């Protein structure tokens, strides 16, 4: 009996070391919220959580690249807004011009939106890679610029008039019983994982973030890597913008304001280092999921709003404290 217990503890410890704190936190959260609310642990609600988390997960994956290279992208929120506004405007215009070719209009709109959002990334990339501007400042500046543009384009009024099919497919559609946004994030996450872990380029992000001089001396183009980083991050945010637009059925300049900090938080509790060079994609996905799950669970458990703010803050801190403990364990395991 006792031996079995010891073995279990040691297995748990090993899993803790290998998988990180997040799977445990997720399980704890699941159990707790299931106890607190009958409606939490239903298939419907779990699907609901998954779908809600898609947007944060997408943006966080992009943010992870910025963090890996030792930077930040504070403009992800604006990128979301710009792509939403531009995408919607373009789609509305295309749809009006050719009301019959709905799918063409949709494709044009999506392209325009993702393109516009990605342009912000290109601006960031140029600033960071070529003018050596600190990513913090560059992306903060671009966030301001982009927001101004989005407001200017719309006058603050939501853009409506997109074909309903857009919302029906990308916002509310589902395939094999699983909502389309989840498919999208799953496919993108898989592609990114292959890119990051199975091709040589993936390692370059780690190398640049960890020691850019060394990366340079090892024959890696630091500039190209940084450039790619910010373009990639923005294009992910822009794609999220379009998914969100489909969900909202309108182009909105006022979305995404909390994304920069929330996506960084999702990365950090997933163990991504703000000093660059450390972080794993699968953990970031779990990080985004965790934040969404906790928010959903607290709503279902009817925890009052002010308290939710406090609880979320405390949880973020505790997650990091626990991860510190894990790192110490990791160190002791290795020796």
């Amino acid at each position, binding site marked *: 009996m006792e031996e079995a217990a010891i073995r279990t503890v040691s297995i748990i410890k090993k899993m803790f070391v290998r998988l990180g704190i997040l799977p445990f936190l997720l399980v704890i959260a699941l159990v707790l919220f299931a106890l607190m609310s009958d409606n939490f642990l239903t298939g419907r609600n779990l699907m609901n959580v998954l779908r809600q988390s898609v947007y944060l997960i997408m943006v966080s994956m992009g943010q992870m690249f910025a963090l890996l290279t030792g930077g930040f992208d504070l403009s992800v929120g604006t990128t979301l807004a710009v792509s939403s506004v531009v995408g919607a405007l373009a789609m509305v215009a295309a749809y009006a011009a050719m009301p019959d070719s709905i799918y063409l209009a949709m494709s044009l709109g999506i392209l325009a939106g993702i393109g516009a959002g990605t342009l912000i990334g290109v601006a960031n990339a140029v600033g960071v890679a070529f003018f050596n501007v600190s990513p913090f400042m560059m992306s903060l500046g671009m966030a301001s610029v982009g927001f101004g543009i989005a407001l200017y384009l719309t006058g603050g009024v*939501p853009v409506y008039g997109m074909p309903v099919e857009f919302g029906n497919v990308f916002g509310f559609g589902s395939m094999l019983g699983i909502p389309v946004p989840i498919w999208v994030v799953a496919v993108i996450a898989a592609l990114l994982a292959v890119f990051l872990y199975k091709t040589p380029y993936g390692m370059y992000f780690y190398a640049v973030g960890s020691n850019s001089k060394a990366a340079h001396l090892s024959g890696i183009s630091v500039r190209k890597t940084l450039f790619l980083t910010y373009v990639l991050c923005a294009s992910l945010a822009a794609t999220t913008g379009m998914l969100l637009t489909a969900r909202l059925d*309108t182009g909105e300049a006022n979305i995404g304001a909390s994304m920069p900090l929330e996506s960084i938080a999702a990365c950090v509790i997933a163990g991504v280092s703000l000093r660059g060079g450390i972080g794993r994609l699968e953990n970031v996905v779990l990080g985004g999921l965790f934040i969404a799950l906790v*928010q959903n669970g607290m709503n279902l458990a009817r925890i009052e709003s002010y308290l939710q703010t406090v609880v979320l803050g405390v949880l973020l801190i505790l997650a990091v404290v626990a991860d510190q403990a894990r790192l110490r364990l990791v160190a002791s395991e290795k020796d």
Partner: protein
Amino acid sequence: NAQDWFPYSVESWNPPFNMESPRKSIDYTPLERASKPWEICVSFPHMKDAYWLGVNYGVASEAERLGVKMQLVEAGGYTELNTQISQIEDCVAAGADAVVIGAISFDGLNNLVSEIRGKGIPVIDVINGMSSSELSAKSLVSFGEMGGKAGEFLAQKHPGGEKVKVAWFPGPAGAGWVEAGNTGFIEGVQGSAIEVVDTKYGDTGKEAQSALVEDALETYPDLDYIAGTAVTAEAAIPILRSRGLEGDVKVVSYYFTPGVDRGIQRGQILAAPTDSTVIQGRIAIDQAVRILENKDYHKHVGPALYVVTTDNHGDFDKTSTLAPDGFKPVFRVE
């Protein structure tokens, strides 16, 4: 006594859901009591100022009076549309029988509304307005009319003659209610002696509005009016006092809060229209219960607007608009 707030004089639009429709005045009387403790979910853009505290007071005390359960969620700000949607989804998942929404976006929640309606759950639009045609009922007045009322108030004071300079502070750029208020205000002052010399958007944090007011006073040394959000009006008071401009530059707000109330009482703020926030909240809950119980209900009502000024402040019943002093937010009514 707040318990017997009714009958209350409101306007009703018919056909509903169109602000252009002809409206008629009616006396609104709510149900005595709900037949069973329905679970009603209320979603607000945020719960960080006195305006929404008033609505909170309205929905909470009406839920209590009717004997229904209420769950309040708030998204944390006007930039959190996505959060609001998630919260409402969560609310429905948690078993709400009806949903009352103070919307962040005029159009952005339409899909959600039809999804919820698809499940047979009534959706009531409160305060902010949504464009969905599938709403069950609306309890609101348009913020455009609020801005309009404030504008008209000024226009009436200065119908013609020498130009009167007004600096206008509608609130954070891009928010739906701000743009509506802005449009209404500009229309309201049309054709009068009022000249809107500047429109300055800005976050409704008091320090942000303070700086905007100060800069406006520097830019226009001969300014006559400061008009804008309640926060602007409150922020302007100490600034004007310190500059000795009290009375020279007059202040008008385009909605009503406790601070504005104090200001009007003390003569520091000239006027503000009230939309009877508390009543809007109360009616929304009553509408929800009526729909759930298959009783007759007015699809589209809103309290009549009127402007509270230093002159009529004495007659003004605060309980229609403001939460009582010391009221703490209520997120749950059992």
